[in-house]
């Protein structure tokens, strides 16, 4: 049997431990992508112990209804010919609700094996489940397993192979006899082409008036009329609609099964309930949440994480280091040594050290911080606390059309926008997810903090991170809120607020393995970015700033001229000058400031390095007052810019489209070129408008008035109008006063 290929689908409710099981049996080395046509994640991998078995992890769902893309994807896959058997994973500590999906999966006529997960917890609670009876009632083998403790897995797959050999099963469980009569009649109306094992499924779906399933069976007019007549008669008899009747019947079957198969130990208050009583307490909930978040940042950004990051930046990519008495050279030192020994030219050494090592190093420096941050956030997510955060914060987020679930991506984005955008996956509703993707990168990521430090140094001569960083997180949140309210009133996001009905899973200690995988998923997304996009982009930036035309000749500028300001002749300078008209109303028309913004689009980590090298102060950091001064003087004041222009520059760079890597992630997450363009267009448009207003209103306060003052006032009025006007009715919204021109164009 081992030689033949076997396709296994994993189905189950959210929080039933399906992902833990998937990671356990596959080692999580698989393909991750989207199901065709939708932004629902598809995970597929080979079984570690037997490569002939392919496991497809279906999205966590509660039902096979036709309303959510996750449910449709899952049922289409189960009904297709690809899977040989479905492993239906159940949280055995919550049989009642978990059996609801199991019944529906059994009804599809596919061979099913039921895995009762969390067997260890059932035992601990003192509950008893009669698996033999349960198996008989469901017409499918039942195996007790624990994905956390790795028990029962071999038996599960032995049963799965046996079941798969049967190819098809006819479901066993029966509803009330009156309903069964109607279902029998509907089955008789089905065309002969519907195979025996799937007839029950389609009969039930037709009874529910499930539009998607109706399309698939192709009834003729006569048959369709007959079915409709049967269903309406039954609805009249039961005084209820058909969907409610079937749901009621399913839960009645479940009640009967539970009665027979489950002996529950006397109820006592679980640890989870005790924790929850405190954590989401009406009065303590918010303070505890603030405390937890503060602790996360204190550890990740403030102390341990930063110590690691500083070590990497100062030693590994700085002056070298000593370990156990042996001294090691820094990475740039190492490369320079090798390259010089190999007789490389200045050009090559410059490319490697100033281009690649400096750029990639800037990114890698953030890894310790990122690592610590994600260890903490992933734990909070996996143990169940983040669901409580969504519960506590929902009221706030609903006001601007999002749900509490949007908060998690924003938290992750404070580390890096790439995993932040990735974690929007947990938001089921498409509109909510799109809006969260569009706005989450307004939250300053780790790489924006040095830019903030530089700007604040230049503006107020102080960059004490303890109050400035929180201030900018706060501004990021304001940008998210303002955008949320404005966008919600546009055609793109119009409509009723999306429902927020969410299970609050019991608290549990995540398995170390799952936790580690979760952290790795996020950190590796960041590392991948460092070695792909940033690697390539630093070479481009290096080329743009080191090559140019000097006295009529094009070439490597350090070879052409001895001048320190060789960059003035570079391609980057030309590009900056060519684009500077866009930023003139924002007050920063110098090519250097524009070049910094361009390098920021590539990677925010580049902005500081570009500033330092443009000012010929390559060794200076954002904490250096000389750099603050040079930055303000040479890039702004010398070009007619003011303090307002510096602030506008900051606002633009913090709010505009994120780095290439995050843009790529947005593209992957939106799964649509149009929506990617809308997202990036909105971000850049919004950033430009905010920058314009800051600069123009500052100038106005100094008594300077121009045509741009009027434009800025007009934008401010438009934003206020959009913020405070009532929600437009229905599909109206032709005259939506959108701030970003690119949004209305799209």
């Amino acid at each position, binding site marked *: 049997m081992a030689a033949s290929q076997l396709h296994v689908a994993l189905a189950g409710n959210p929080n039933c431990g399906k992902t833990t099981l998937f990671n356990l049996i596959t080692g999580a080395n698989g393909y991750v992508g989207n199901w065709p046509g939708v932004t629902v994640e598809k995970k597929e991998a080979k079984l570690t112990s037997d490569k002939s078995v392919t496991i497809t992890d279906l999205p966590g769902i*509660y*039902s096979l*209804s036709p*309303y*959510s893309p996750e449910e449709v994807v899952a049922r289409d896959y189960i009904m297709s010919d690809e899977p040989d058997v479905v492993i239906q994973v159940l949280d055995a500590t*919550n049989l*009642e*609700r978990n059996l*609801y999906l199991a019944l529906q999966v059994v009804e599809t006529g596919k061979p099913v094996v039921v895995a009762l997960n969390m067997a260890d917890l059932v035992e601990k609670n003192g509950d008893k489940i009669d698996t033999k009876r349960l198996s008989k009632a469901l017409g499918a083998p039942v195996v007790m397993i624990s994905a956390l403790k790795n028990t029962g897995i071999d038996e599960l797959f032995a049963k799965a192979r046996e079941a798969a050999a049967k190819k098809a099963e006819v479901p066993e469980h029966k509803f009330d006899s009156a309903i069964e009569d109607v279902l029998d009649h509907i089955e008789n109306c089905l065309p002969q082409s519907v195979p025996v094992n799937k007839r029950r499924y389609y009969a039930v779906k037709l009874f529910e008036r499930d539009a998607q399933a109706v399309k698939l069976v192709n009834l003729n007019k006569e048959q369709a009329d007959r079915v409709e007549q049967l269903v309406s008669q039954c609805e009249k008899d039961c005084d*209820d609609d058909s*969907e*409610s009747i079937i*749901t*009621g019947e399913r*839960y009645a079957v479940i009640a009967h099964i539970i009665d027979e198969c489950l002996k529950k130990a006397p109820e006592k208050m679980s640890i989870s309930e005790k924790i*929850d009583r405190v954590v*989401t*307490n*009406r*009065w303590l*909930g*918010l303070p505890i949440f603030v405390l937890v978040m503060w602790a996360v940042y204190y550890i990740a950004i403030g102390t341990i994480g930063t110590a690691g990051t500083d070590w990497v930046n100062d030693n590994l990519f700085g002056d070298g280091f000593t370990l156990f008495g042996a001294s090691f050279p820094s990475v740039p030192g190492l490369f320079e040594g090798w390259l010089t020994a190999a007789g490389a030219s200045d050009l090559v050494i410059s490319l490697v050290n100033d281009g690649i090592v400096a750029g990639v190093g800037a990114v890698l420096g953030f890894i310790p911080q990122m690592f610590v941050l994600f260890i903490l956030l992933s734990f909070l997510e996996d143990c169940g606390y983040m*669901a409580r955060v*969504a*519960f*506590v914060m*929902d*009221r*706030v987020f*609903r006001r601007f059309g999002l749900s509490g679930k949007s908060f998690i991506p924003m938290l992750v984005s404070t580390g890096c926008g790439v995993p932040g955008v990735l974690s929007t996956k947990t938001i089921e509703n498409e509109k909510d997810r799109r809006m969260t993707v569009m706005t989450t990168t307004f939250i300053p990521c780790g790489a924006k903090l040095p830019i903030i430090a530089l700007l604040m140094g230049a503006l107020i001569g102080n960059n004490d991170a303890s109050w400035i960083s929180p201030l900018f997180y706060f501004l990021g949140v304001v940008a998210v809120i303002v955008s949320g309210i404005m966008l919600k009133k546009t055609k793109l996001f119009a409509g009723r*607020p999306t*429902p*927020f*009905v*969410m*299970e*609050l*899973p*019991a608290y549990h200690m995540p398995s170390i393995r799952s936790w580690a995988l979760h952290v790795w998923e996020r950190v590796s997304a960041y590392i991948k970015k460092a070695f792909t996009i940033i690697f390539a982009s630093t070479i481009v930036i290096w080329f743009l700033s080191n090559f140019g035309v000097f006295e009529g000749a094009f070439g490597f500028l350090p070879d052409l001229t001895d001048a320190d300001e060789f960059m003035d002749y570079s391609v980057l300078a030309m590009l900056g000058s060519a684009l500077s008209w866009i930023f003139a109303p924002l007050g920063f028309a110098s090519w250097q400031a524009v070049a910094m913004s361009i390098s920021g689009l590539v990677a925010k980590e580049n902005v500081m390095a570009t500033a330092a090298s443009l000012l010929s102060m390559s060794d200076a950091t954002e904490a250096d007052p000389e750099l603050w001064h040079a930055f303000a003087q040479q890039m702004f004041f010398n070009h007619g810019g003011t303090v307002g222009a510096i602030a506008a520059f900051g606002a633009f760079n913090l709010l505009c489209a994120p780095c290439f890597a995050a843009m790529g992630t947005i593209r992957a997450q939106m799964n649509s070129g149009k929506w990617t363009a809308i997202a990036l267009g909105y971000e850049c448009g919004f950033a430009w408008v905010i920058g314009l207003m800051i600069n123009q209103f500052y100038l106005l306060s100094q008594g300077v008035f121009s045509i741009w003052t009027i434009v800025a006032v007009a934008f401010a009025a438009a934003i206020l109008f959009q913020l405070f006007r009532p929600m437009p009715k229905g599909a109206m919204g032709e005259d939506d006063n959108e701030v970003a021109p690119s949004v209305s164009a799209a």
Partner: protein
Amino acid sequence: MKTLGDVAVGDSSTIIKLHGEGALRRHLMDLGLIKGTKFTVVKVAPLGDPVEINVRGYELSIRKEEAAIVEVQ
């Protein structure tokens, strides 16, 4: 009509009917909120909304606005 959102924290009640139509109604039914189901309101979030209910042995968070389609005893 008394709805799920009207039940005080700590009190239990039984569902009489789900009003409305479409995805939200079906989702609530799939989660086990149907005619005759008993539930307990466990707590309300610090900002007054949503509420947490215990139904069929698990905890569910639901906004008062959505709870308004659930008629209870």
